[in-house]
């Protein structure tokens, strides 16, 4: 009987079939909607881990809003006077007070202090120009829009958010993301100073101050990662560490840290609050002194 196919032909055919089936396929794409469900999922974490933990710092505008909603009211004479911009001659002082004036700006806006808000915005702009970030304000259209819409709180807050976004984008484009920790820590100290010294109409500001203290360790961690050797922020880090140490040595705070009590049950006595207020005020004074 005549062979239909020779051994060589058969081998070639088999080789073709085998190698075709070994070709990889494009991963299938699904069009599933991303239904977000909170569920308990067991994950296998048993593989090499990298010890790189990044910190996401919150928005100073949000912190100011939290205090405002808690009943914090504007008190004249507390903010860093805009006229102080002229005394900030060092790079460190300029960076820190950019943060300070940002917090003062949010404080003025959320308390509808329009003239104070315009003055603080100009102080922020002066500091941003001084540290090479003048592009954040563009050709002046942001300031014009701010002044034009000063009586519309929603619009003004949107503008503040736009400034924050531009600042973050600038830092990223210039590979200076770590400087955000410097701006934020100065803004945080200023916000805490304002919170501790302003009128607390509803008595709800103190719990929010305490809540802010629980993120101080995270702030210190972020600022320690700052990598510009020309910035002299040792005093700031030491001051924050001292405040953090005092806070975490308080007996009630230790209970909270151990998980024995919830945040809403964490209460400090008047002496402890006064000591914290003094430490925050001292550090703030150093920052705005330049």
């Amino acid at each position, binding site marked *: 009987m005549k062979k239909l196919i*020779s051994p*060589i*032909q058969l081998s*070639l*055919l088999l*080789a*073709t079939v085998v*190698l*075709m089936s*070994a*070709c*990889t396929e*494009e991963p299938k*794409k699904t*069009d599933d909607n*991303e239904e*977000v*469900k*909170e569920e*308990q*999922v*067991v*994950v296998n*974490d048993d*593989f*090499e*881990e*990298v010890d*790189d*933990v*990044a*910190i*996401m*710092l*919150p*928005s100073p*505008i*949000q*912190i100011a*809003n*939290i205090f*405002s*909603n808690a009943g914090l009211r504007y008190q004249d004479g507390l903010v860093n006077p805009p006229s102080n911009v002229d005394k900030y001659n060092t790079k460190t002082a300029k960076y820190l007070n950019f943060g300070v004036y940002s917090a003062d700006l949010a404080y003025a806006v959320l308390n509808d202090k329009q003239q104070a808000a315009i003055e603080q915005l100009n102080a922020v702009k002066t500091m941003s120009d001084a540290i090479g970030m003048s592009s954040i304000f563009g050709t002046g259209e942001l300031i014009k829009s701010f002044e034009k819409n000063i009586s519309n*709180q929603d619009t003004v*807050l*949107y503008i503040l*958010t736009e400034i*924050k*976004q531009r600042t*973050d*984008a600038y830092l*990223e*484009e210039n590979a200076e993301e770590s400087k*955000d920790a410097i701006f934020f820590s100065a803004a945080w100290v200023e916000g805490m100073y304002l919170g501790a010294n302003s009128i607390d*109409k509803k008595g709800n500001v103190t719990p929010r101050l305490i*809540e802010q203290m629980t*993120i101080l360790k*995270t702030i210190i961690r972020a600022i320690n990662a700052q990598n510009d050797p020309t910035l002299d922020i040792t005093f700031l880090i030491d001051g924050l560490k001292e405040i953090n140490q005092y806070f975490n040595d308080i007996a009630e705070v230790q209970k909270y840290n151990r998980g024995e009590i919830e*945040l*809403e049950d964490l209460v400090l006595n008047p002496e402890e609050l006064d000591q914290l207020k003094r430490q925050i005020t001292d550090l703030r004074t150093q920052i705005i002194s330049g």
Partner: protein
Amino acid sequence: MIQMKKLITNFILLVATVVFTTSGIAPTYSDKVECNSKALKKEGITELSPYYYSSAKVTDVRYRDTAYNSEIVVPLFKGEEYRMIFNGKSLPAGIEINIYDVDKSHENRKPLYSTTSSTNKLIVYEPKRSKRHYISYRIPAGKNIEDACMVFVLGYKLTFVKEVD
């Protein structure tokens, strides 16, 4: 004549073998992928509305021979509402995103949410509880890929408490 036919048939089979074995095999992770973090972030910010932008974190993803984790600590405040956007569209392979409410020192911690990044869509997550969150990216093993990134954008709801006299 028969020999010629055999030769032609064998030749065709040989060519077919060569063609089919060299086409359709795309190395899974050998292409260079660009990370346009600015565009990815802008896209993420657009998805935040009506939440206000808080901050963003771009995580450079560098593939290695073994899988590894990269983590972000996200402090959140009590009673506040948040939206998290993950844009992994520049990534060639799925990064697993796990969100926890305890840090990695807690053994056997279980994620509140777990998903895999996609080239198709943004991932949107709104935490049910406003306490500190830990975002962990599990990056699978891969070779010859650089400049990939995952962009995370955080937004918060701005609320105003009206004063009651």
